[in-house]
């Protein structure tokens, strides 16, 4: 009986001490904010397009950091963004939900524009300029290609056009040798 008392007491006391130590530690190492979601946000393309199902890049970053969303929802970011988020999160990469598309920018057919300013309000990055009853113009250098302006336009005068390929932005593709190509294929199939 006495034995049992010692056992209970010592174990209880020991657990109490451990509990106190941990309680103190949790105060000392308390974390403000979520630095992880900042890091994820920095990887996102900031198109604010909402294709991930969240109302912008920051909310998606928060969701990923909180473990509520998968890493593969960012369509405009493409495979590279998915890989770097997966890498940061330390999870297995997943195939993208949708095919990667060519980069596009919005273009307003000015002769059809009625100057309603609806697209200006819809643009998440203020890339469309113009005043009421005036033609609106898309600043191509600022446009993220999020297509959020297409839907509100009452006369459907906005097109998505391919971003022109610039000589300065040209870069060497992988070599044409079998080994290099196989490597690229392997990398792609790896995520399926």
């Amino acid at each position, binding site marked *: 009986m006495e*034995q049992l008392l*010692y*056992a209970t007491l*010592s*174990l209880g006391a*020991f*657990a109490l001490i*451990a509990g106190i*130590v*941990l309680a103190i*530690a*949790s105060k000392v*190492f*308390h*974390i403000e904010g979520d*630095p*992880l979601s900042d*890091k994820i946000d920095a990887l996102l393309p900031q198109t604010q397009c909402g294709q991930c199902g969240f109302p912008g890049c920051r909310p998606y970053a928060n969701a990923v950091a909180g473990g509520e969303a998968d890493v593969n929802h960012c369509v405009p970011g493409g495979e590279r963004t998915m890989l770097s988020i997966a890498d*940061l*999160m*330390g999870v297995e990469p997943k195939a993208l939900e949708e095919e990667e598309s060519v980069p596009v920018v919005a273009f307003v057919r000015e002769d059809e524009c009625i100057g309603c300013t609806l697209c200006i309000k819809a643009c998440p990055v203020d890339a469309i300029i113009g005043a009421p009853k005036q033609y609106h113009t898309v600043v191509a250098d600022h446009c993220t290609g999020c297509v959020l302006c297409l839907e509100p336009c009452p006369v459907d005068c906005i097109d998505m056009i391919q971003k022109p390929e610039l000589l300065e932005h040209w870069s060497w593709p992988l070599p044409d040798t079998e080994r290099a190509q*196989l*490597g690229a294929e*392997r990398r792609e199939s790896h995520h399926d």
Partner: protein
Amino acid sequence: MSAINEFGVILLSAVLVNNYVLTKFLGICPFLGVSGKTETAIGMSFAVMFVMTLASTASWLVQEYILIPLDLLYLQTIFFILIIATLVQFIEMMIHKVSPVLYQGLGIYLPLITTNCAVLGVALLNVQQENTFMTSALYGFGAAVGFALVLVLFSGLRERMEGAPIPDAFKGSAVTLITAGMMSLAFLGFSGLVKV
């Protein structure tokens, strides 16, 4: 001189000859789990070093001053696990604060140090071998260094294998285990180096 000699023998034995991972096959789970990247492997190594050294000293103290005097040896495992769990919780909070990325990288394996059999193994073996306070601390540290050494080496090998055209049948854990096996065979070369 002889004390230093003895310490050296203990260290060498724990690090190389009786390496926990490659010759005792303890702690295989984190060895395979967090060796994907050298960076995380190094982080894990430090975490394990911290936990193992402290756990072996703390468990020695508990054994010597609580369990034996109170004749509670049958509570040994529970006590040791309590110690380890507390230490792991502590280091988990610390890493989360200091390096969130490492925290993410270690993922589930960080709390799992609690169930890392190598840590409990060190604590139990210390008691079995009737080590003194100093030697158990040293033994715990040595075992952790041995664990860290092979973990980091192994992570290097795995990083190198990342881009290799490994046959489909051997991809993933198959080739990883073969490599671990090969390393274990190579470590057999150290056998007999220290007579313990």
